């Protein structure tokens, strides 16, 4: 071969090679390549004419032409213009769609071929997304409270706080009170041009409402000012919103309440009778409203006009209920004018207080402040929680946060799972990649293929998850005890977000195998010499999954233990076998209380009977009291007030620490005696409670001596510390408490009920057992615990699915190694152990990280309880052990399979 021939041969080959590289880029049309090639040849020829050697000339020309990437960028800018000019756009699009279809069919085929792993992957992700969706709906529901009111952004709730002394620091958020005075509203409306309306709500003390012979004890009602429907957007179905509460003695019923009293008859214009309480008397039904939606912090069934309450109060010399700053029985809401801000009003509130109430705050000196809280924050607000009366349901922000985190956790676990399994699987497909590349697949095409597969799986999983969430929603509603709306699921923005998320996850999970694998050189792959990099990342993800699962188990155990502790904790009085009958403070019963008690005591199975104004777990007003201090002066102190009859404390078996309990024998006990608890003694500065006996007291119109001190007992939920409490004998009682001693509670209740219907036929028989009522205090916590546990179990399940899949692939990867080991004499057990050890190390790492995280989080939650368990090492060991056990079981299946592999088979394919 001559030199010339050799160089010409080089040139054509070089040009062909150059063209091949450029030709793979779709952006260059054939004619573009022709044009560039012509250019290349021209330039090369020119350089050769200048005296260059052909090869050098070509290289220089190629250099001058520029690199393929740069060219691609520039050509891409004009590509669509070219196609449009030649009317070739549609073929291009068809091409793209065809590529997508082909990718999809290959993807589907792949999924079918590896059914087990595909299902594990999809299952884990489906459960994770479904859980996340359900929790998301729950969170959305909780955050949607009160937003349905048209003027919600202008409505505010009035808060107040009151302290002894002046110059006190700013109160904390939870020290503000809500249930307060009626006096403010009219004054606010008059003094502030920014305030368009101020309305009050009162009520919710149990009253008996009757219509003919239908009689119900109602608690879910309000007395409401006439402007109620102007401020709040509760739909009024019948009646004029402006007048429906304006008249004297009118009532608006919800649809449910209307049905309850009137059946299908028309209630408008009919009368209902209030047989007790503030608005006693007949009322006329003036309107019907739709039932209050679930996400409202105001919970009621009936509205009575405020006038019903006010008129009667004023007529009966009780105007102080409406005029006194210190009388609390109202919730106040204000509607601000458009364009005004709450800050503007808030600035002027201190001056408002000074203007109207300065006199009453002087002696003894105290500070009193008002504040405005947006309506939309009322449900989650910490204000007024310790007060005995609430306007409706209250949210729990801590639990909400925890749930949000759990939802996120589960989603992350599921996504990690998916990614892990996808990447593990990709290693198994290395050979496929090698073959494809040899046959000429471009890197971009391969990447596209992997991504399409991943997105296919995530999309399928997401769609199934959404359906699953929808199907499980009713069950979830029951579990959570809330009317969670499914509407957000149908919101187009939400749907778009969910699908977008699915695509994103598919991209993320598919990206690793896509990019890494497509980079493999065919020769490497087919020989089997690729490194499986990224194993470290996969292991980290498994450890992370187990960390979260273990943290969730710890959380569940802590919640469960704490709830059990609350239920079993000795309360300090005899709470079992106490049958409580609620007669609503009805004066007809009250006046005959001694006779009634004797009637019940005569029944078999009833050992004793007493009565009280409240029961532990119920409502205790604060009574301003003055007690003689150790130094002889009378000191003001705020004590809870528990009004009882003489036998109540004895019957409950509270422990006496000093002095004595009330006695029917001692006449002065009815008016001039007070019993307090040890917390009160401490509050007064008495180190020895015995010193308190005999000291003087003044309280709400009574004076006398302290006759006894009882040991602290829990009269409120164990979330609260025992606060100072005082007891006095009073006729203003509401509950009968019967001590039973039979084993058959049902029989005793039946007996009591029969007797009740004879003695007190005009009142409904309402009974409860004291210990059950107490347990009911923790109903919210119980629900929380149940939900928490459910989601923790699901999280672990998903993590185990991932572990299962990974173990399976690990076995598959190491079949040869197993074969060799067995051939060399390893037992099945040792092979199984080898496998398990690797994975269990990861669980251990997860455990180590989970411990501090779970400890901190659960300590925070436990801070919400005055009486709480200690998070001991036992809980962590239990959680860790459980996780380990589950992991062992999961991995051992695969390890056992691995151990059983026949070395002959595995080593055959070399």
């Amino acid at each position, binding site marked *: 071969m001559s030199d010339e021939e050799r160089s010409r041969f080089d040139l054509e080959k070089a040009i062909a090679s150059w063209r091949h590289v450029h030709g793979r880029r779709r952006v260059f049309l054939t004619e573009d390549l022709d044009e560039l090639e*012509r250019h290349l040849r021209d330039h090369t020829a020119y350089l050769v004419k200048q005296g260059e050697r052909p090869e050098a000339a070509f290289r220089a020309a190629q250099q001058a032409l520029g690199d393929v990437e*740069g*060219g691609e960028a*520039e050509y891409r800018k004009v590509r669509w213009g070219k196609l449009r000019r030649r009317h070739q756009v549609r073929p291009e699009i068809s091409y793209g769609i065809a590529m997508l279809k082909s990718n999809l069919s290959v993807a589907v085929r792949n999924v079918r071929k590896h059914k087990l792993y595909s299902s594990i992957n999809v299952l884990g992700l489906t459960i994770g997304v479904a859980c996340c969706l359900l929790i998301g709906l729950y969170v959305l529901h909780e955050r949607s409270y009160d937003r349905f009111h048209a003027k919600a952004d202008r409505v505010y709730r009035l808060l107040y706080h009151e302290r002894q002394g002046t110059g006190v620091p700013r109160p904390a958020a939870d020290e503000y009170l809500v249930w307060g005075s009626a006096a403010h509203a009219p004054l606010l409306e008059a003094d502030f041009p920014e305030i368009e309306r101020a309305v009050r709500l009162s009520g919710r003390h149990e009253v008996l409402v009757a219509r003919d012979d239908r009689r119900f004890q109602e608690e879910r009602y309000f007395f409401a000012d006439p402007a109620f429907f102007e401020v709040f957007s509760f739909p009024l179905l019948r009646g004029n919103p402006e007048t429906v509460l304006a008249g004297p003695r009118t009532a608006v019923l919800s649809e449910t309440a209307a049905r309850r009293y009137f059946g299908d008859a028309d209630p408008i214009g009919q009368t209902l009778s209030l047989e007790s309480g503030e608005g006693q008397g007949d009322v006329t039904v003036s309107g019907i409203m739709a039932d209050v939606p679930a996400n409202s912090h105001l919970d009621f069934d009936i509205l009575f006009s405020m006038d019903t309450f006010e008129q009667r109060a004023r007529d009966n010399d009780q105007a102080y209920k409406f005029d006194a700053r210190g009388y609390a029985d109202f919730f106040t809401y204000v509607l601000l004018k458009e364009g005004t801000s709450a800050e503007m009003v808030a600035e002027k509130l201190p001056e408002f207080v000074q203007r109207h109430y300065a006199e009453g705050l002087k002696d003894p000196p105290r500070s009193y402040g008002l504040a405005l809280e947006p309506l939309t924050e009322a449900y989650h607000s910490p204000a007024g929680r310790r007060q005995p009366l609430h306007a409706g349901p209250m949210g729990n922000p801590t639990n909400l946060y925890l749930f949000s985190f759990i939802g996120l956790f589960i989603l992350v676990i599921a996504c990690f799972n998916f990614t892990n399994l996808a990447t593990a699987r990709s290693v198994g497909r290395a050979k496929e990649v090698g073959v494809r590349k040899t046959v000429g697949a471009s890197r971009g095409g391969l990447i596209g293929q992997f991504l399409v597969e991943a997105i296919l799986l995530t999309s399928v999983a997401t769609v199934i998850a959404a359906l699953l969430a929808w199907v499980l929603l009713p069950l979830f509603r029951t579990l959570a005890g809330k009317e969670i709306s499914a509407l957000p699921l149908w919101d187009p923005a939400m749907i778009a977000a969910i699908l977008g998320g699915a695509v994103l996850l598919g991209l993320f999970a598919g990206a690793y195998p896509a990019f890494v694998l497509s980079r493999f050189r065919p020769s490497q792959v087919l020989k089997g010499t690729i490194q499986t990099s990224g194993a470290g990342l996969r292991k980290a993800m498994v450890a992370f999954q187990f960390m979260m699962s273990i943290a969730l188990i710890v959380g569940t155990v802590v919640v469960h233990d704490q709830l059990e502790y609350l239920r079993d904790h000795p309360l300090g009085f005899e709470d079992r076998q106490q049958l409580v009958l609620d007669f609503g403070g009805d004066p007809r019963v009250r006046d005959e209380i001694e006779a009634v008690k004797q009637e019940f005591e005569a029944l078999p199975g009833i050992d004793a009977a007493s009565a009280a104004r409240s029961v532990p777990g119920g409502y205790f007003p604060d009574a301003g009291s003055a007690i003689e201090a150790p130094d002889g002066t009378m000191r003001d102190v705020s004590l809870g007030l528990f009004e009882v009859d003489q036998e109540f404390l004895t019957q409950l078996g509270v422990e006496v620490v000093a002095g004595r309990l009330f006695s029917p024998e001692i006449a002065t006990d009815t008016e001039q005696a007070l019993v307090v608890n040890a917390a009160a003694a401490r509050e007064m500065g008495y180190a020895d409670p015995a010193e308190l006996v005999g000291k003087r007291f003044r309280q709400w119109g009574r004076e006398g001596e302290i006759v006894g001190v009882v040991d602290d007992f829990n009269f409120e939920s164990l979330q609260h510390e025992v606060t100072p409490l005082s007891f006095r004998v009073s006729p203003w009682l509401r509950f009968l408490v019967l001590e039973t001693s039979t084993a058959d509670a049902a029989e005793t209740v039946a007996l009591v009920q029969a007797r009740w219907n004879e003695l007190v036929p005009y009142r409904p028989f309402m009974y409860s057992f004291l210990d059950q009522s107490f347990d009911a205090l923790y109903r919210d916590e119980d629900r929380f615990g149940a939900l928490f546990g459910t989601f923790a179990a699901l999280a672990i399940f998903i993590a185990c699915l991932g572990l299962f899949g990974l173990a399976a692939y690990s076995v598959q990867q190491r079949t040869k190694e197993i074969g060799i080991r067995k051939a060399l004499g390893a037992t099945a057990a040792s092979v199984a152990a080898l496998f398990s050890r690797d994975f269990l190390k990861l669980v251990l790492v997860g455990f180590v990280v989970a411990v501090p995280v779970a400890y901190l989080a659960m300590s925070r939650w436990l801070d919400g309880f005055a009486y709480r368990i200690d998070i001991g090492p036992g809980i962590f060991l239990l959680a860790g052990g459980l996780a380990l056990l589950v992991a062992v079981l999961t991995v051992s299946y695969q390890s056992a399979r691995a151990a059983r592999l026949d070395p002959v088979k595995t080593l055959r394919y070399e």
Partner: protein
Amino acid sequence: MLPKPLVAASFEPLVLALLARGETYGYELIQRIEELSDGRIVWSANRLYPLLHDLENRGLVAAKWRDEAPGPNRKYYRLTSKGERAMEQARRDWLDVNALLARLWGPDLSLST
């Protein structure tokens, strides 16, 4: 080499001006401009050809393949009447700018109003 922004800005008017002198192909355009500018302007093929295609898309130039052995055919470009009008406009714009600069900088580069 002239600064990049200038090279980029002058790309289109220069191409139109060169094509006005007669039909030609890409490689020749690159060579001519390098010659005419004394090497201060060197266009890369990756930039020139897409630009020519863009001009073709916009109807300012028309292209035709001519058979030239050996190797693939050459794509020749010529100005259309629309292109001529565009060139006229570009010419006016550049001359305006040029006049303004000449006024500001003056013949002896001293500051003059």
